[in-house]
């Protein structure tokens, strides 16, 4: 027997001798192990999938939650906030909720903003009326919105009224003795203002009513007027945007040089 045959025989004999001691776990054990591994793998896959879905949802939510212009906003505070809100480019990661929204400018009413959002064309010119507009003081002037104008106005639309009254000075100039401003709306369609009597026998001068927020000068010099429009005598109530009640009558009476 060669050494190679001897080596082969020795190896075969050793392997053969050990075989009876080999305990095969069996096919069923192999199947159980395989089923268990597959179940674990499936479970892990499910957990990973759920985690990915959750993570993806968490990441995706801020993108979907980014404030967008609501195509049909209602005239409410929230709709105004939607219009003015923008994503806050802060250093932190996007929040799942929209960032705090800035409040609208104080110069713009909520309803006016809402009206802009709804693309409703609000009438730019509203014509209020006044009672006792040309009456001498002391008198109580009443400014009001007639029903025809109220019907034209947008919901919540307001009209600012500025007014001023002047008296003649002996030199032929006028100085403002009273004035003010206020808003009229559907919620407050009328307002009364009291105007005192001219002081010291000074003739009543011009009286201006202006639909809008304006500032009248303290003094009108050289017999000039702010507007050519003049209320005629006896017309105590009229439509106005910027009406003038001049002191013509007073001048005619010789009270003003």
């Amino acid at each position: 027997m060669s050494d190679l045959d001897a080596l082969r025989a020795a190896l075969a004999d050793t392997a053969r001798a050990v075989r009876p001691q080999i305990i095969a776990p069996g096919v069923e054990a192999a199947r159980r192990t395989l089923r268990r591994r597959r179940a674990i793998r499936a479970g892990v896959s499910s957990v990973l999938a759920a985690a990915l879905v959750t993570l993806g949802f968490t990441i995706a939510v801020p993108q979907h939650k980014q404030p967008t212009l609501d195509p049909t906003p209602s005239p409410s505070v929230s709709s105004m906030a939607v219009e003015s809100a923008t994503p806050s480019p802060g250093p932190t990661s996007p929040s799942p909720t929209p960032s705090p929204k800035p409040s609208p400018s104080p110069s713009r009413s909520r309803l006016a903003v809402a009206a802009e959002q709804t693309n409703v064309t609000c009438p730019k010119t509203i014509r209020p009326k006044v009672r006792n507009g040309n009456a001498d003081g002391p008198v109580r002037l009443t400014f009001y919105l007639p029903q025809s104008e109220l019907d034209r106005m947008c919901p919540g639309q307001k009209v600012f009224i500025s007014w001023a009254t002047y008296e003649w000075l002996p030199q032929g100039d006028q100085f403002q003795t009273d004035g003010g401003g206020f808003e009229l709306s559907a919620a407050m369609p009328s307002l009364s203002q009291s105007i005192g009597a001219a002081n010291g026998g000074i003739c009543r001068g011009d009286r201006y009513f202006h639909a809008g927020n304006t500032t009248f000068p303290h003094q009108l010099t050289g017999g000039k007027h702010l507007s050519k429009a003049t209320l005629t005598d006896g017309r105590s109530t009229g439509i106005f945007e910027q009406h003038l009640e001049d002191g013509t009558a007073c001048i005619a009476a010789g009270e003003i040089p």
Partner: protein
Amino acid sequence: MTEHREFAEFYSASFQKLAAALYVYTGDLAEAQDVVQEAMIRALARWSTVSTYEEPAAWVRQVAWNLATSRWRRLRRGLHLAAQGHVETPAPGPGPDRVAIVAALAQLPARQRQAVILHYLEDQPVAVIAETMGTAEGTVKSWLHRARAALAEQLSDEAPAEEVDHV
């Protein structure tokens, strides 16, 4: 159902032979059984494919040897045995000659030992061994030559050394 029966027949026909060869390689019967069972589980997982191979046993043998020679697996096995306070005991049954040959094989480098077992116990051609071990045929021949010389020297204490033929 046929597939299950085919695998069961394959398992019965292959397990002991492969486990015995790996016992000669590892000197650890339990480790040999674990490695072969793991290879069988992997074969079962893809039996629809493995069963179509010309020699499914070759695929399982390859997997089992890869597992047995895996350094990571050997490390885990060593840690596992150490944690259990394992004391190496010779497998019962083989006589002194067989224990001697296993002990002599254990002195060989792992690659040479694997080549010897595959060639002289499993009757694998050098070309197949080279492919299995991922090396050149000449390298396998060199390993076999050195292994024979080393075995002859180690076993010379029990039997007079004889010149080993070239492969």
